[in-house]
């Protein structure tokens, strides 16, 4: 289904999410535009990853709607949701590559399951995706033989195997050194420009936010909702909320130290 480019590719309306009796976020509203790098920020425990899992349909929200390319993920039946899963790719925090398969087999998996392409063409698709993320030479390696950054790039290649228009990334820079992290940021920007992929990224890496985010939302565990939305540079300078300013300026929580003896 083709979607009008002027419409948001993702629209979240009045979302209320949590675990069991515990409400983590409520009244969450935002939209993601075609081709933008959209980031979900917030402190530890603010519900960023939980929100992401609700967006991609892994957890059902208590209330609200999640529209992805014109279809409501929440109201969809199970069989419809399975079809919707093919519209987007997901990178999990640890990469989540299948350890018993080579990197190439990991990328081939969605192609084998969801297309009728002949074997040599599938192999060419997978190799091209791996080259795109700079891992062509690692195609035959096992995930355990790769570094953390390489595993995440391989997982991005797997997520892109079916050419989705949206990629959800859960803390892509977590546990990576600054150089590898910057390389991953560059890759995301390249893919966004070249392939027009829309990125929804959960992170709290300030360097990534400043270098690649087009727009952000920030979650707050006190108010349990979105406290600000906009462009990172503008929010850094002009945010009304003191917590947002502290976040962007890396100011620590005030700690009461014992008086000197």
């Amino acid at each position, binding site marked *: 289904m083709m979607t009008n480019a002027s419409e948001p590719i993702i629209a979240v309306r009045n979302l209320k999410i949590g675990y069991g009796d515990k409400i983590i976020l409520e009244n969450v509203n935002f939209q993601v535009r075609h081709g933008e790098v959209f980031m979900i920020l917030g402190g530890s425990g603010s519900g960023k990853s939980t929100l992401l899992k609700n967006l991609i349909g892994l957890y059902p929200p208590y209330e609200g709607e999640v529209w992805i390319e014109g279809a409501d993920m929440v109201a969809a039946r199970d069989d419809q949701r399975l079809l919707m899963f093919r519209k987007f790719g997901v990178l999990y925090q640890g990469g989540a590559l299948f*350890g*018993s398969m080579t990197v190439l087999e990991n990328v081939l998996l969605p192609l084998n399951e969801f297309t009728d*392409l002949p074997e040599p*063409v599938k192999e060419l698709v997978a190799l091209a995706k791996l080259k795109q993320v700079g891992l062509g030479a690692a195609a035959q390696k096992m995930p355990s033989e790769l570094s953390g950054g390489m595993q995440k790039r391989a997982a991005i290649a797997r997520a892109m195997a079916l050419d989705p228009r949206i990629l959800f990334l859960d803390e892509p820079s977590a546990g990576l050194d600054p150089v590898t992290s910057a390389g991953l940021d560059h890759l995301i920007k390249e893919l966004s420009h070249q392939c027009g992929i829309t990125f929804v990224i959960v992170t709290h890496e300030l360097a990534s936010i400043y270098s690649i985010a087009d727009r952000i939302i920030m979650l707050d565990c006190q108010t349990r909702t979105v406290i600000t939305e906009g462009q990172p540079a503008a929010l850094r300078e002009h945010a009304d909320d003191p917590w947002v300013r502290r976040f962007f300026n890396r100011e620590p929580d005030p700690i009461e130290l014992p008086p000197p003896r």
Partner: protein
Amino acid sequence: MTTTTQNELETDVQVTPDGHARVVLHNQLDAQTAAACWSVLERNLGVPNLKTLEVDVSGLSHCDGAGFALLQYLNLGKMTPTAKVSVVGFNDKFEKVFREFTPADYTAFRPQNSTRKNSLPAEVGNAVAQAATDLYEQVNFLGDILINLPPTLVSRKRMRWPEVRRVFETAGANAVPIVSLISLLVGLIIAFESAQPLAQFGAQIYVANMIGLVIVRELGPLLAAILLAGRSGSAFAAEIGTMKVNEELNALETLGLDPIRYLVIQRLTAGILLTPLLACYATFMGVLGGVLVMLGLGFPLKLIFHQLSSAVHLNDVVFAAAKGVVFGAIVSGVGCLRGLQTKQGPSAVGISTTRAVVTSILLIIMADAVFSVVFFMLT
């Protein structure tokens, strides 16, 4: 000329008698249409001694990764090995993506067919070396335990008795229902099956003697130990294996705590203490099963007990308890060893638990055989 339309893709194929082919693609070439397009091309381009193939993609409005892969495949000459192939008519955007993946990349990245297999002597050698390494590690582990056991046992602080109590409860008390059911049923089955042939000789009363000997000497301790291996030996391996995968064992060592002293001794102690009790309980339930069958056959309880007491002596019970001690040490020791030997990777913990159960049962049966010989020699 052949024109085929599949959903959003139109494919025109033209092959001249002098060996020149031209393919023109229109609209969308994606994962869905590329598969059908492949069939059309394969059907029409299978001409012998094709000299040239020109693929015109100027009519394409959309081309995804699968589409580019199909064009790459044609460009590499894989479908038409005799022809000189050219893909023409790209717009700037498509051209850039297409040229990014070169034939040299294909050669460099694709899997090489390396079906090198070891020869039989090499396989045998590897297996022997692996068995020798495993034996060495088992002996090493036994040595570590013998060194750590006495000082840990005498130190109340180092022993961590609450951990022993926890293991005793999870591996022992929580196993009582399953041990009860299986032992009772095994006793029932043996008594029932043997009662019929013995009836032919008028010797049904000796079912009680047989139950007493078989259950007390062999099956009681054996059932308890096998159930313990399946239930708790595997749990020990999984628990310690997961700790190793999560680097908790490294953390213990760098804190100055020996994993043998901190994790293994407690499980070993609990195993040694609980298995004789579990073996005696399994024996009791097995005999009870046999007694129930005998009662069902019409024998009075007093007579059954008389037969039992004439067949089973105190040394049989002591021997069963002794077996329990050894089996308990085997199950908990092997479970912990396999846990400590866990390697990295997603299937490592699963492999460790399987190895724990298999090795435990193997060693239990071997130890049981040794016990039988020793018992025969002593009596």
